């Protein structure tokens, strides 16, 4: 209570100061705009999180080398990368830290379980957030004006996988496993609902955790139910050993999962058992993205490694922010936030536009299969208007 007037005075000063600044813009002055990047940089999912951070870093380098002027002022962008350890609690701490260090916008987080709690903090601070990868539908259903994503969500991805399972793979009996995270469970639930509606039988629904590596007991139980297909909602450190153990138990069923396991790392972990495994991923195949081959080359030249998953989305998220800033003529979050909703941007991943909730409109989903130790694109599905409306 005592502090309120002080804050008001401070604010008034700040307004006066910024007002002064605007009246007499220094032509030589370069404004620094901070962009936050939040993803797991350590822990089992670090490879995916670092991939996102690299995408953001590349975008910021490109933007800086273009010598942009926004609202008549030269602008230099700066990345502040934070590690959320794929941990929801840590994610909120990181979000607060980013808000406190006055970032203009945030690219993040990777995990739905991290993006959702963090989004409230960004929303309260009025800072726009684009998740490059969080696919849980709840993320954009909270009524926040600041939440966006540049991937299709699980209500699109899960059903796409489900329809593929029923129509193309002709699966009649299906076992579903999830890793008890917001992402894994959301994806598995959406998948389960679709295959049930499509007339297939879900013969087992099992749960593991995102730390476990022993799935023998679950898989043995599933073997007794004789499914044609196993679907896993989770990330590659679990999917790899799971596929391996499935082969060891003599389960001949097909195996499919979501974007969390569509990584080179999965193939390394699963070894020979990876052959024939299918996984969907929101977005076009990296190679088929409109800006794909150029981006992949640029990425490889700088980081000496292949793009894991979401670097292109991270890159585009930054570009969407900058595009909105240009149209608004301001780097103030309050000014350019409304412009993000009106985005019509041609990014690396394809055309980017958002619906009223902040979801990507018509985000394509591609299903991949492992062939000779490599992920190969099998089929691309665009959910279309009916999928996007849900």
């Amino acid at each position, binding site marked *: 209570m005592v502090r309120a007037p002080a804050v008001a005075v401070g604010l008034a000063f700040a307004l006066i100061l910024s007002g002064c600044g605007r009246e007499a813009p220094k032509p030589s002055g370069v404004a620094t705009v901070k962009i936050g990047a939040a993803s797991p940089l*350590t*822990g*089992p999912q*670090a*490879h995916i999180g670092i991939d996102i951070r690299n995408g953001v870093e590349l975008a910021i380098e490109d933007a800086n080398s273009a010598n942009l002027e926004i609202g008549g002022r030269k602008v230099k962008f700066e990345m502040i990368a934070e590690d959320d350890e794929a941990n929801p609690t840590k994610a909120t701490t990181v979000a607060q830290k980013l808000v406190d260090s006055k970032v203009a916008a945030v690219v993040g987080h990777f995990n739905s379980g991290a993006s959702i709690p963090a989004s409230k903090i960004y929303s309260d601070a009025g800072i726009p957030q684009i998740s490059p990868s969080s696919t849980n539908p709840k993320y954009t259903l909270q009524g926040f004006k600041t939440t966006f994503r540049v991937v299709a969500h699980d209500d699109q991805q899960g059903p796409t996988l489900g329809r593929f399972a029923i129509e193309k793979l002709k699966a009649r009996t299906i076992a579903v496993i999830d890793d*008890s995270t917001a992402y894994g469970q959301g994806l598995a639930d959406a998948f389960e609902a679709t295959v049930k509606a499509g007339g297939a039988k879900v013969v087992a*629904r*099992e*749960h*593991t*955790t995102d*730390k476990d*590596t*022993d799935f*023998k*007991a*679950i898989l*043995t*139980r599933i*073997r*007794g139910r004789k499914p044609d297909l196993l679907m896993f909602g989770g990330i590659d*450190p679990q999917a*790899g*050993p799971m596929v*391996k153990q499935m082969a*060891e*138990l*003599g389960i001949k069923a097909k195996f499919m999962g979501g974007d969390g396991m569509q990584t080179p*790392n999965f193939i*390394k*972990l699963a*070894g*020979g058992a990876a052959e024939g495994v299918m996984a969907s991923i929101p977005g076009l195949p990296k190679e088929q993205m409109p800006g794909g081959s150029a981006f992949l080359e640029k990425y490889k030249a700088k980081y000496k490694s292949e793009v894991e998953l979401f670097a292109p989305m991270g890159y585009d998220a930054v570009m969407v922010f900058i595009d909105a800033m240009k149209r608004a003529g301001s780097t103030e979050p309050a000014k350019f936030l409304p412009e993000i909703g009106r985005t019509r941007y041609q990014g690396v991943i394809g055309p980017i536009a958002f619906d009223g909730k902040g979801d990507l409109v018509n985000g394509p989903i591609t299903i991949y299969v492992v062939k000779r130790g490599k992920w190969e694109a099998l089929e691309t599905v665009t959910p279309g208007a009916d999928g996007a409306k849900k």
Partner: protein
Amino acid sequence: MDIFLQQLVNGLVLGSIYALVALGYTMVYGILGLINFAHGDICMIGALTALTVAQALAAMGLPAPLVLVLSALAAVAVCSALGVSIERAAYRPLRRAPRLAPLITAIGVSILLQYSAALIWGKQYLSMPELVKPSEIAVGGVHLTDLQAFIFLLACAIMGGLLWFIRSTRAGRAMRATEQNPDVAGLMGVNVNHVIALTFLLGSAVGAVAGVMVVLYYGIGHYFMGFMLGLKAFTAAVLGGIGNVAGAMLGGMLLGVVESLATGYIGDLTGGVLGSNYRDVFAFLVLILVLVFRPSGLLGERVADRT
């Protein structure tokens, strides 16, 4: 029925790894009355050492069995040295201190090992090169790989060897004497410091083998893997009666089987209310039940007498 047998086999393989790790806990407890919480992390160091050596040697193109043996030997050597040095540096100065002091030191050593490993190997999951492609053995409806059979048999051989060592050799007799009363054993000419160092060496070496088994079996390792492994093995040791070597073996096997069966049948037993994600809950529930009805563990008799 074959599902039940399969779960039993799964449980026995898992249990044999738990049992090996539990031996390290129980041997140290038997002699020092100390719960060496760093033991799970020693296994982790063994696992990651083996993984690194295997990666390097496999890249050089050495034959797979040789790579396997050399990486296991490297793990055993590193862990034995590590176990003995930890005892020398961290526990020996506190041997006459109140019991809480070495316990907290053990927790500190555990954290030290975890984060040293995180610095050396990084925090990501590491994958073990697939040295030998395990071939399947199907007996009736039960599937197991030669690797699983090998893990189980090797674990049994090590446990048998250890029991023989403790019961029938001179050094084993010295260990048993120290366990009963270190001061009197010292008066009888037993070098207590040597016996304790030997105990740490044996426990850590066996733990290293268990760590190698884990990375071989699951093909994956990371700096935090020792925590849950250690916790489960400690549970197994308590289950069997901590301080009792045969008890640790029994407890490990039992815990593995209980976990496996619980995961397989908990859904059916509770009508779908509890799912397979409650598997760890089940393991610790068994521990609580044993402690309530048989506080000294299944085979533990003497523990209650110790002061």
